[in-house]
């Protein structure tokens, strides 16, 4: 089955992001296809490389990056949500005159159309959040 995953909550604050990761990993292990993982609302905070969790805790951002690299996942951060919350890549830094970037490896910033396209192209849209 082909899935698009929507992550609506920030890391550490809410288990939704853990559940989304574990679901994605399990689906891939079972041979399903992940069309896209779309990060929305505070979920965009899953994509900052500046996160520094304690060493004895899971590294949620790194975990996404590694899973993404292993399975060539399309990890998309919503641009409108990202601008509000300060998730920045090179393009956004240049467009909005910011002096730094913080996007993590394997993520990209794009529009809400990517979520809608994911819902159209996939057999299931699975939303993680409250």
């Amino acid at each position, binding site marked *: 089955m082909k899935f698009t995953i929507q992550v609506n909550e920030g890391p550490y604050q809410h288990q939704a992001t853990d559940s989304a990761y574990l679901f994605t990993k399990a689906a891939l292990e079972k041979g399903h296809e992940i069309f896209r993982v779309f990060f929305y*609302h505070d979920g965009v905070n899953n994509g900052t490389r500046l996160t520094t969790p304690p060493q004895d805790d899971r590294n949620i951002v790194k975990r996404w990056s590694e899973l993404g690299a292993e399975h060539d996942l399309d990890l998309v951060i919503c641009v409108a949500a990202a601008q509000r919350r300060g998730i920045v890549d090179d393009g956004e830094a240049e467009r909005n005159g910011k002096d730094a970037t913080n996007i993590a490896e394997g993520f990209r910033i794009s529009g809400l159309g990517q*979520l*809608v396209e994911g*819902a*159209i192209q996939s057999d299931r849209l699975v*939303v993680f959040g409250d």
Partner: protein
Amino acid sequence: MSKVKKFMYVNRRAPYGTIYAWESLEVVLIGAAFEQDVSMAFIGDGVYQLTKGQDTTGLEMKNFSPTYSALGDYEVTKIYIEKESLEERGLTLEDLQHLTWEDEDDDWAEKDSIQLVSRAEMVKVFADQDVFFNF
């Protein structure tokens, strides 16, 4: 492009307390360009999103409630309000914005977008959908 899907946007939260309501509306507006068969449902505290006369001056937040009246222009013409959710909050349809759309197949007649449905009827509406966006 694959076949047109039935999209249901479910709005469950009051506006302003969290950003879900506003960022939900942003998805609906962007999603309109994809020409799917779109419906919206307002249940629970979500019914507060459509109340008339919202004034956010004291909150220092943008009042996005006027945007709902543009939904008809985006061809979002099926807006389901759950009757029990209104009643539980002491509200009636009179407390909500009057949302309309113009039917080009009927000489641009202005028609109501809002349909008041019971909780049991909402279950049937939901059963008929392909995709849920839950906010």
